């Protein structure tokens, strides 16, 4: 047993981060911790590495009791924290040299090891580049390289792929898998991605500091055995709406997600597919369970008492029409943005219609953020034409901003103001006041399930709440268009469903949504999407069109994305 925890408990002030945690991991295995944000994954990693002391319970690592042997353990293990603190003003090779010196890697071994790591991470051409000048994916790879300057007895990876695009994500995992095979490493990895957990021998599902289940990926899958189904979306009916209708039907359905022309869902216990098929007047097909299905059922069961989320949602019906309007609200023609010699966005053309959900996708550094910022009027364009809600952004940037709401990637409200104070402040900034503002805040508090938290400091709220508050603040002035920059990174799967349910609601009420995301499966919620790389559009269309064009109907969005980007890079 390389790690063994018995009744391990860790509390911070009033918060229980780990609650009677019992955990065992064998030598030479690849083990995963999966669970929502704040489940206690990071705390457990820090306990193992002796960076924090347990409140009670026992923890042995490499046969040593952690308490009192912190340094001995730290000599033998390697740990990659979630936010790997690279020295940004040091180059790639200086960062690696520092870690090699600290680990006492001998010069003879070092040359070979560095060459191998640099080759695997694809960083060999950039060794003299400052770490601060690397893209998100490259930084993570360098972090991994620094962690692996020597072969450790135990490797801890805390969400190594968070904020990393699918391509870099796959590359990172190839490195991890190769090292596990070559050096017989023991690895404990925490992740929010199910496809990553699927590659591990053993998976622990964690929520609120407790282990809900442990076993092989297949064991977790079997939780959902016989409860997974899919329905084909009727002709001319948005998949997203069908998905929402199923999600709202809580008596029958645990969870539902869009997937191409289908909606995948998990039935409640004793779900009768035939009966339900009659009820919704659509054929239902049984499908094999995935790891995520098992995980979602475990989470739902654990959160049973917290799932009463009240929203002011517009009710959706299967026999209604939800056509996409013909009115064009965003026009982008030959849009160019240069930074010195570097062209970040190159001759881009697209249009977005009212009420559409439009996704901007691409690897790190593809030009997504630049495009996004120009659309919001935060960055002037170098050349081209851009109009948002009928206003030309070249001539009237301020005016265009009145019609848009913007939710930044990082929580950008005032952490030391309460929920209500933040909303009051932003309302004032949008020029609302008096009864108007009060009524609007009232509406939003209900809509975004923030009632009861009005007087809490917004900085202390959990991730999902912060995200809802940011949305509420961006919607105070009832904008025609809402821009969301990676709104779902760092929030748990259940909160993500709520988020998309709300997006569906907003779009059904006529708000146009522009969104960027790293979760490829979320592209399925979009009416149309665009994939960019090196500033150019590689694909544009509905998820289904893109599938047909670049792969086959059964590919996952992740596979499609990787093949599109790789083809373009290989060919160009």
């Amino acid at each position: 047993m390389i790690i063994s925890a018995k009744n391990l408990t860790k509390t911070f002030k009033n918060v229980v981060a780990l609650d009677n945690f019992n955990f065992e991991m064998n030598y030479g295995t690849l083990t995963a911790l999966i669970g929502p944000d704040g489940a206690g994954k990071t705390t457990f990693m820090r306990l193992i590495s002796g960076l924090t002391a347990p409140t009670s319970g026992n923890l042995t690592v490499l046969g040593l009791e952690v308490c009192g042997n912190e340094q001995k353990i730290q000599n033998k293990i390697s740990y990659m924290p979630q936010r790997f603190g690279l020295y940004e003003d040091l180059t790639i090779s200086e960062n690696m040299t520092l870690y090699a010196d600290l680990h006492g890697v001998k010069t003879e071994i070092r040359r070979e090891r560095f060459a191998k790591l640099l080759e695997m991470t694809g960083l060999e051409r950039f060794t003299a580049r400052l770490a601060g000048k690397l893209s998100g994916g490259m930084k993570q790879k360098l972090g991994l390289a620094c962690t692996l300057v020597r072969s450790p007895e135990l490797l801890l990876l805390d969400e190594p792929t968070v904020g990393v695009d699918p391509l870099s994500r796959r590359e990172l995992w190839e490195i991890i898998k190769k090292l596990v095979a070559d050096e017989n490493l023991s690895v404990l990895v925490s992740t929010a991605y199910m496809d990553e957990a699927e590659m591990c021998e053993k998976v622990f599902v964690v929520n609120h500091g407790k282990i809900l289940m442990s076993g092989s990926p297949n064991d977790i899958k079997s939780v959902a055995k016989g409860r997974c189904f899919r329905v084909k979306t009727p002709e001319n009916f948005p998949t997203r709406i069908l998905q929402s209708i199923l999600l709202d039907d809580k008596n029958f359905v645990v969870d539902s997600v869009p997937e191409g022309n289908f909606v995948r869902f998990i039935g409640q216990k004793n779900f009768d597919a035939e009966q339900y098929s009659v009820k919704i007047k659509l054929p239902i097909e049984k499908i094999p369970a995935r790891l995520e299905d098992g995980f979602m059922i475990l989470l739902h069961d654990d959160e049973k008492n917290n799932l009463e989320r009240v929203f002011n949602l517009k009710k959706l019906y299967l026999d209604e029409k939800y056509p996409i309007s013909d009115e064009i609200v965003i026009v982008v023609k030959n849009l160019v943005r240069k930074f010195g010699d570097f062209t970040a966005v190159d001759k881009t053309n697209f249009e977005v219609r009212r009420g559409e959900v439009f996704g901007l996708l691409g690897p790190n550094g593809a030009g997504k953020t630049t495009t996004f910022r120009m659309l919001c009027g935060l960055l002037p364009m170098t050349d081209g034409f851009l109009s948002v809600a009928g206003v030309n952004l070249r001539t009237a940037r301020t005016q265009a901003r009145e019609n848009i709401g913007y939710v930044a990637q990082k929580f950008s409200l005032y952490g030391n103001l309460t929920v209500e104070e933040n909303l009051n402040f932003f309302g004032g900034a949008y020029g609302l006041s008096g009864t108007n503002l009060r009524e609007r805040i009232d509406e939003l508090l209900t809509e975004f399930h923030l009632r009861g938290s009005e007087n809490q400091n917004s900085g202390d709220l959990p991730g999902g709440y912060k995200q809802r508050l940011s949305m509420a603040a961006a919607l105070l002035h009832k904008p025609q268009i809402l821009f969301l920059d990676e709104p779902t990174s760092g929030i748990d799967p259940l909160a993500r469903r709520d988020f998309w349910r709300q997006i569906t609601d907003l779009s059904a009420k006529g708000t146009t949504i522009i969104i960027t995301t790293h979760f490829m499966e979320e592209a399925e919620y979009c009416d149309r999407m665009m994939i960019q790389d090196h500033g150019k559009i590689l694909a544009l269309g509905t998820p289904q069109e893109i599938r047909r064009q670049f792969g086959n109907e059964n590919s996952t969005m992740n596979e499609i994305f990787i093949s599109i980007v790789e083809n373009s890079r290989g060919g160009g």
Partner: protein
Amino acid sequence: MKFFRRLSALIRKEFLQLARDNSSILIGAVLPIVLILIMGYGISLDVKNVPVAVVLEDFSPAAHDSMNFLDGSKYFSTKYVTSMAEAKILMRERKVEAILRVPPTFSSDFQRGEAKLQLILYGADSATATSVQNYVEGSIRQINSGKIAIESRIWFNDANSSTFYFIPGLIMLILTIVGVFLTALVMAREWERGTLEAIFVTPVRLIEILLAKIIPYFVVAMFGFILCLIAAKFLYKLPIHGSLTIILLSSVIYLFVSLGIGLVISAATKSQFLSAQISLIVSFMPALMLTGFIFDLRSVPNFISTIGHALPPTYYLELLKTLFLAGNNWTMIAENCSILVLYAIFFIGLALKITKKRVD
């Protein structure tokens, strides 16, 4: 030795960062130069060409003659008026800083040796007022005593130039800023950016991490110190009456005190912003206000003086001033150096105690 290999790796990293980070160079090298130029040329507590109104109520030539000393002095610029009313107007408009009233009976009283003069000072700026008072009284005493001239002289600052008085304070200030402020900032940056979390889970020891902060910033601060010393000697011709070795030694000790305080602050706050604020409040401001740098600790209220004497820079400043301007006073050197050594041990010990390889 593994210890030295790890330590030198960390120190090399620190110097690389120093070389690439303009703000550290700014604080470490540019700031001392700017401060020494501003303080040396810009700030002066000396009074020169002070406008003084002389009210001659006694019109006799003798009275006028006895006021002649004012005309020839570089310290005063004199304005003669004949009535107190005029003088008051000048004073109210602050066209003069002082009124010297020569009463109608001055000449006759002077013969009897009972002459009296009234000196009225503009008190808003008390330091200037006091200086003017001293000058005028000094000058009058000189004439009054007839042939026996009392030549007053200020000891230890022969030219009574405040620049001489400021330079030791400035050196103290620079060691404080670099030691406390810069060290607190760079250490807090490591906490804030999360660079320490990965570093902690390596064979590195805490003492190595702290030493790797102390040594580079010791070098930076010594560099600033040498710059100041050169400027003091060659730019301002500051005399060094005491031993240069003792000056260096006491500076090294004081630097360890500052570095220790900086490390304690960063370990307690773990945030750059807070570290900067706290460094300013607990080190820079008191070093400026409460150590005798600007206000002599003998002329401030007792409790302020008590606070001043609880601060390490006070002892260092006393050392420097004495060593530069007076000479070796071995009792004082021994006493103040021991106090500083105790402070250094205390703060570095505290830094070692409260910095933990922990992220809670």
